[in-house]
């Protein structure tokens, strides 16, 4: 019985990692109609940033997060201005090429600059676990879980109760109508993209105590983040978070009770089932951003 509880808790905690990574992705997708294929590479850059802050100046990764968020907000603004804005009116496949191109460039730059080595930091609390009735709860994973939920809630309030947030939602619902109401759509896009990127930056800092960083690390997380975003309903933050926990649970439970090699097959089956019965995803509507 204990072990079952442990497996479920591990699964939920693990879902938190996917949630944190997929929130930024679903925001950008929902508002801008852009599939950001470079999402994983932003994560990779954030991991390297956190890694080097730690190695060079001994900065704790959680402290590094405070620097990484504004840094990545600027990084997001810059890449939106240089890469996304010029292609906004172009067909969807142009966005695919632009973001995919960026992803390949960043990967190869990282390979060139940092080589293919697996780098990781060791902080004393990294493998520390709280023990509650024989159930082990790992501290960095708990932090990710809590921050992930807080970010989702915070973003919800931001989108519903601030002027900028309302402008973002209005733009997501109907770009032209928003434009006619005097909303600076270009600015909204820039801010949305920057928020999305800074959230994945935050994710990178929080993942560093657990994982190693290498040039193609993004793939390890982003494939599942894409599944979570589509399963939750494009643009639905609540959907992405819930889908992330669902995938985390399916992965851990199937890995434990069946075999670690079948877990991917299993969550993709769940994914297809969800889409069969709810083609817009769990919480998706035809309009986006809830």
């Amino acid at each position, binding site marked *: 019985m204990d072990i079952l509880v442990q497996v479920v808790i591990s699964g939920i905690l693990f879902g938190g990692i996917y949630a944190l990574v997929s929130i930024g992705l679903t925001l950008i997708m929902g508002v801008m109609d852009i599939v950001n294929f470079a999402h994983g590479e932003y994560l990779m850059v954030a991991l390297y940033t956190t890694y080097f802050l730690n190695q060079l100046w001994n900065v704790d990764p959680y402290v590094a997060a405070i620097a990484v968020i504004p840094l990545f907000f600027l990084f997001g603004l810059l890449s939106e201005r240089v890469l996304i804005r010029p292609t906004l009116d172009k067909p969807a496949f142009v966005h695919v090429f632009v973001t995919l191109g960026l992803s390949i460039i960043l990967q190869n730059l990282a390979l060139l600059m940092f080589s293919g080595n697996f780098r990781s930091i060791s902080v004393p609390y990294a493998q520390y676990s709280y023990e509650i009735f024989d159930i082990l709860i790992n501290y960095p994973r708990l932090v990710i879980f809590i921050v992930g939920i807080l970010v989702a809630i915070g973003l919800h309030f931001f989108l519903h109760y601030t002027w900028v947030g309302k402008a973002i939602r209005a733009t997501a619902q109907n770009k032209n109508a928003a434009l006619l109401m005097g909303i600076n759509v270009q600015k909204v896009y820039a801010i949305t993209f920057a928020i999305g990127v800074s959230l994945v930056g935050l994710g990178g800092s929080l993942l560093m105590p657990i994982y190693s960083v290498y040039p193609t690390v993004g793939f390890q997380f982003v494939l599942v983040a894409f599944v979570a975003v589509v399963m939750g309903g494009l643009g639905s933050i609540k959907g992405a978070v819930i889908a992330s926990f669902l995938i985390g649970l399916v992965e*851990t439970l199937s890995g434990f009770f069946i075999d670690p090699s079948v877990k991917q097959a299993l969550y993709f089956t769940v994914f297809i089932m969800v889409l069969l019965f709810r083609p817009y995803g769990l919480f998706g509507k035809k309009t986006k951003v809830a």
Partner: protein
Amino acid sequence: MMSNQRLLAVLLMAMLLVGVVAGCGGTQESAGDTQGSSQDQQVKDPIIIGTIFPLSGPLALNGKDTFDGVEIARQIINERGGIEGREVKFVSADAPDPTAATQEADRLIQEKKVQIIIGTQSSSLSLAASAVAERNKVFYWEVEGIADGITGRGFKYIFRPTFSAQMMATQMLNFVEKVVAPELGKDPKDLKVILVHEDSGFGTSTAKNIEAQVSNYSFQLMDSQSYSAKSAELSSLVLSLKAKNPDVLLAASYVNDAILLARTSKELGFKPPVTIGTTAGHGTPDFVKALGEDAAGIFAAGILSSVSPAKMKPEFKALFDEVTKRYKEKYNGKEPSVNVYNGFSGAWLLLHDVLPRAQNIDAEGVREAALELDLPEGSTLMGYGVKFAGPDQENAGQNTSAFAAVMQWQDGKLVPVFPDILAQKNPVIQE
């Protein structure tokens, strides 16, 4: 005006081409010491041996070291009067990738007419180059690549003095039975051994080798589980391992998943008394950097991490010192890596033990001499004995007396602990 420009362009192109051709050649004939040869009345023909190593490109770091070792063997042999008075000369080729390895093997055989080739450091290069040698009936001596396929193709002319991946699996199992079981105070029959492996080529083939051989031992595999090295989630694997509570965990992992496996195990309070990985994952510098003190006690089987002369025969001790001295002289005091000694060991065996026994120094003669060789443990610098599998045996050309090493992380260093002849310290195993 136009024609002038065109002429210039043609000239430039021609110059470029010449440059490229000259740059690509990459052949150096290392003429040994020629002093005194003019006084000699009868100068015997030199023995020409082709060498193929990755001297540029991503594999060059280890490739150069191995080649340096091979070259030092040649120098010492020549200084001691060559092979029956004949000087040994190398025609050395650079093969950064399998295509180049194929081409260079072809060139050495067709143009330079070599009958003997020493190679290749990396398995992918070796598989490519040795196929060309076999086709042309040229003797091929692989000093470092460990892929099973190299000697698993039933070739007649390929010989590998060093161990194969299959023998790495053997050594893991030997270590469990001979060292781990007694240290844990258990009858091997009662030992709970679980194998986990990543599900791409490396992990799967290692797992197959282990599963195929385990019936020769008195313990059994309690379970064998695969996982994806790309997965970010290993908690489920760790929890299911924890539930089975093994004494020994065998792990065929790469680096990233080895790190995640070890970290997740610690998070979830899973600590088997003995973990044995391989030098592809648990034995890498990245692993110990990531795990720090938590790496202590973990074992890795595979390529020896460092060479110690302590248990060598006097003649090899002297050679060990000589190789170290020459390498340091060449590279301003830099300590030689294992690859240097391994390259030397392989080349020395060929030049010192095989060639002098050959009736004729051609592919056929050298091949027969190699097959006749039967040397006990301790007859090479790397410690192993020599007995090659014959053409009608399994793994033809494989040195069946070679063996992999088992190392353990102790005080941040990967220390050889098994087998005895390679061991520099005793393994530390605590229940």
